[in-house]
């Protein structure tokens, strides 16, 4: 089913590929990113970081640094301790040092901060700070972290006797055991998703500006969740006088986010403390190296996966046991009831009723994190597990993986569908999606070609992934972060001349909210999108909301915009009835005007009605034309996709060429097709990245081995294939616009499709699984092991 536009191109409501409003400033170099903010008298902060993964700090000598001309001060953990600002909470209610007072827990940890009159002087002073460390043997292997004789890392936590953080489980353990015992076929695989880093091209930073005269703290900050940050800062620093009304967080243009700009990093807190103590603005901008080495990582899930099925390939049960390495602290930003995020979406797109999932999380001496890398809280891990296992099952019973999927899919008429682990999938048509993908790529011909290639000893593979996502967190009864319910908001003000400004609790990082939100309001009110200004990211002006991540903006704030606009349309209807002297029921709405049923010449445009709301409204009605809505979603949304990838592998070198990649997405109704397609392209490249290139690697001593863009391989245009995309549309039945959210689906769906293709290519050699990133070297080693090359 394709969406048909209800509004004209001039109005530019849903379904129109409007060009983006934000582009004009960006293509002229006139964006305003954090590092572009320059305030009078601004000082610069730079950070001394630990060379060790685990060490006692014996002393910090700042004398030489302070002697440098232009150095204002050096802030250490002890200084913060004096103000009781040396610890802070993470979003998942763990705790984290701002700066250490005695022990460093991971390499590149912040140890001291230098404030100086210029960037260069601050960097000089960092070199001049002398820290005397006593290194200790770090715990780097998450499996060993649970050994009884492993040193307990979080000695700051009273009574903590091990490195275990939490155990989370979901499903029926006994019943699952039972099904596995009686199953015809059981397949099992160990699947590890390594640590990766979002590496948005803009790193993190802030400009903190405390005005001593007004006692107002303004912080320009790279954050995806400005309102939540304001609340956390008030909670952490309320006792020194920073109460919430005196804190203003401004998230200006963001150069990408992908989850990396959700957490609150120590640098922000020290910069805020520094401006508070010094009374001058302080800028802190991290380098790429610091960003990769210290800011939140993603993934690092070691999963033992099992699938039970009949001999015909009907899936009966899924079981997964996971060890999660969180590093020094649990720095996830998950909803608090869900420490393992939405991992229980791991049963996938298939119809079976038995599953059991568990996760144990541990502390190690790696940097903290556990954030998403463009995915909704561990959905990528879940999708990778099930989509690999389905292929392994297909391989084991000798069935085509497309056929096996078709036979196991939840059927269109089974929605809303209650999954084995308790989610209620809202809508989908998985058969239609896969069929469309197969037709588009020419699946049958490709399989024929593969037979011919194999006969010639060539390695060609076709990989499928048919994932279901879970996004749009979330309903307030279950979803909160630090107790803050995960609703989101929109406030619309329409000016007397019919032009509007709308503000939101979310924050775009490139998703194009300034364009799409305007389209939503245009759709509902008939005011042309080009006459609607959108603002986000300033906590002094925008309504409260939890921000943009987990594909939640359209699912929550987008819905809020629709409902706020509908409130205004109701008001417009009342005014129209008054002006046209008919009853409300006698009026008919078409985008942009109300007219009298049966007498279409008697009508009032929305612009006329808005003007009347200021000049000539019914007695007893409130004047003005403004509305606000805080949207509490009744359920999450469940976008899905069918992706097919074709690879050719060089049997001599192991080089992998992604020949084609087709992505069919179902994100429900589409607001701006051009933007949705762009989101999918970008997400797919962030899918091939971990599948083939990216991994943060540490040695046993805790040293990072690839902590810069020299060897952390972000794909260029050469590694990134030409993506082919299309859609099926099953509107979300519970979302006011039928939309679901899209930006993360491709990052979830691409890696299994690519790995499945690579394994398919190598399957004649008996290969059933390869860990990501699948590099040419890994493939070459397999070719060597199997005697293909010598």
């Amino acid at each position, binding site marked *: 089913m394709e969406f048909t536009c209800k509004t004209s191109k001039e109005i530019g409501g849903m379904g129109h590929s409007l060009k983006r409003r934000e582009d004009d400033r*960006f*293509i002229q170099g006139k964006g305003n990113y954090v590092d572009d903010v320059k305030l009078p008298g601004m000082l610069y902060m730079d950070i001394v970081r630990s060379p060790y993964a685990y060490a006692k700090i014996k002393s910090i000598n700042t004398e030489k640094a302070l002697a440098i001309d232009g150095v204002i001060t050096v802030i250490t953990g002890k200084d913060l301790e004096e103000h009781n600002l040396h610890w802070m909470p993470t979003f998942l209610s763990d705790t984290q040092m701002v700066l250490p007072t005695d022990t460093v827990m991971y390499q590149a940890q912040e140890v001291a901060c230098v404030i100086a009159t210029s960037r260069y002087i601050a960097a000089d002073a960092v070199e001049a700070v002398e820290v005397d460390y006593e290194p200790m043997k770090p715990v780097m292997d998450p499996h060993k972290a649970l050994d009884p004789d492993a040193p307990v890392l979080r000695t700051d936590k009273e009574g903590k006797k091990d490195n275990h953080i939490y155990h989370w489980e979901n499903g029926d353990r006994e019943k699952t055991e039972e099904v596995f015992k009686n199953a015809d076929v059981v397949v099992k695989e160990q699947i590890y998703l390594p640590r990766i880093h979002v590496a948005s091209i803009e790193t993190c930073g802030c400009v903190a500006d405390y005005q001593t005269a007004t006692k107002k703290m303004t912080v320009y900050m790279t954050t995806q969740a400005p309102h939540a940050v304001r609340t956390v800062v008030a909670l952490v620093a309320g006792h020194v006088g920073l109460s919430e009304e005196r804190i203003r967080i401004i998230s200006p243009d963001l150069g990408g986010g992908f989850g990396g700009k959700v957490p609150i990093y120590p640098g922000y807190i020290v910069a805020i403390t520094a401006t508070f103590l010094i009374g001058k603005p302080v800028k802190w901008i991290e380098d790429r190296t610091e960003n990769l080495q210290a800011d939140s990582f993603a993934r690092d899930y070691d999963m033992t996966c099992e699938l039970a099925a009949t001999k015909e390939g009907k899936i009966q049960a899924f079981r997964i046991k996971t060890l999660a390495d969180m590093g020094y602290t649990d720095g996830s930003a998950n909803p608090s009831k869900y420490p393992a995020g939405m991992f229980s979406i791991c049963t996938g797109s298939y119809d079976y009723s038995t599953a059991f999932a568990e996760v144990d999380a541990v502390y190690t001496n790696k940097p903290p994190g556990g954030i998403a890398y463009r995915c909704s809280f561990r959905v990528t891990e879940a999708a990778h597990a099930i989509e690999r296992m389905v292929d392994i099952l297909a391989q084991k019973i000798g069935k085509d993986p497309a056929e096996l999927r078709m036979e196991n899919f939840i059927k269109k008429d089974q929605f809303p569908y209650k999954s084995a682990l308790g989610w209620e999938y809202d809508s989908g048509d998985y058969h239609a999606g896969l069929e469309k993908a197969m037709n588009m790529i020419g699946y049958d011909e490709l399989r024929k070609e593969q037979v011919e290639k194999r006969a010639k000893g060539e390695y060609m593979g076709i990989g499928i992934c048919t994932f279901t996502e879970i996004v749009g967190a979330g309903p307030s009864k279950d979803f909160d972060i630090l107790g803050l319910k995960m609703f989101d908001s929109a406030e619309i003000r329409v000016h007397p001349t019919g032009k509007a400004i709308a503000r939101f609790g979310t924050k775009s990082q490139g998703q194009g909210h300034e364009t799409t939100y305007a389209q939503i309001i245009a759709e509902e009110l008939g005011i042309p999108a080009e006459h609607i200004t959108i603002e986000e990211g300033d906590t002094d002006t925008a309504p409260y909301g939890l921000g943009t991540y987990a594909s939640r903006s359209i699912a929550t704030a987008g819905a809020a915009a629709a409902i706020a606009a509908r409130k205004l349309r109701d008001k417009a209807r009342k005014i129209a009835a008054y002006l046209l002297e008919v009853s409300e029921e006698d009026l008919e709405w078409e985008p942009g005007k109300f007219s009298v049923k049966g007498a279409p010449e008697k009508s009032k445009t929305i612009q006329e009605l808005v003007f009347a709301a200021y000049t000539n409204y019914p007695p007893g009605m409130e004047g003005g034309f403004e509305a606000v809505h805080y949207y509490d979603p009744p359920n999450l949304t469940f976008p899905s996709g069918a992706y097919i990838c074709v690879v050719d592998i060089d049997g001599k070198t192991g080089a992998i060429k992604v020949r084609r990649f087709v992505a069919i997405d179902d994100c429900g109704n589409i607001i701006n097709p051009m933007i949705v397609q762009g989101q999918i*392209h970008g997400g797919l*490249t962030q899918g091939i990245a971990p599948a083939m290139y990216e991994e943060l690697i540490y040695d046993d001593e805790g040293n990072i081995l690839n902590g810069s863009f020299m060897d952390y391989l972000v794909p260029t245009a050469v590694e990134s294939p030409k993506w082919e995309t299309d859609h099926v549309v099953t509107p979300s039945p519970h979302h006011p616009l039928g939309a679901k959210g899209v930006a993360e689906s491709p990052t979830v769906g691409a890696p299994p499709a690519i790995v499945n293709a690579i394994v398919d290519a190598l399957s004649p050699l008996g290969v059933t699984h390869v860990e990501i990133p699948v590099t040419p070297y890994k493939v070459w080693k397999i070719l060597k092991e199997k005697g293909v090359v010598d």
Partner: protein
Amino acid sequence: MKKEVTINVNGTSYTEEVEPRLLLVHFIRENLELTGTHIGCDTSHCGACTILLNGDSVKSCTIFTVQADGAEIATVEGMMQDGKYHPLQEAFKEYHGLQCGFCTPGMLMRAIDFLKHNPDPTEEEIRWGISSNLCRCTGYNNIVIAIEKAAEKMREVEVETVA
């Protein structure tokens, strides 16, 4: 010990005293307050800082300001002429070649130089041509298309630009 440099940027000549170690990208961003040129790394890999130095695209984080003494520089702020977009700017907007916009100025500057040397490139050539520049948002598809389309237009009409 500071050194005097004279550098022409987007048609305006600037004379300033700078530290010999001042990176050109910081001179452009902080001394001249032309913040369209961005910084995305510390190892010369991302290309966010790409500008034109005497007509050639270079990564301005990899050059000292003093090395650019006497040079002519163009940055993204110099692309528009007579209030009109350069065909590349137009095409990036038209074909959705940007999302967060952080890589965009560097991409545009790189594309100008690339098309100067290869005015009628294949898709493959464009991909290699911009492989000096990272984009984390777009997946490159639409950047490639935008450059293709701009190239078409630029072959038809002569484009005036400081670049």
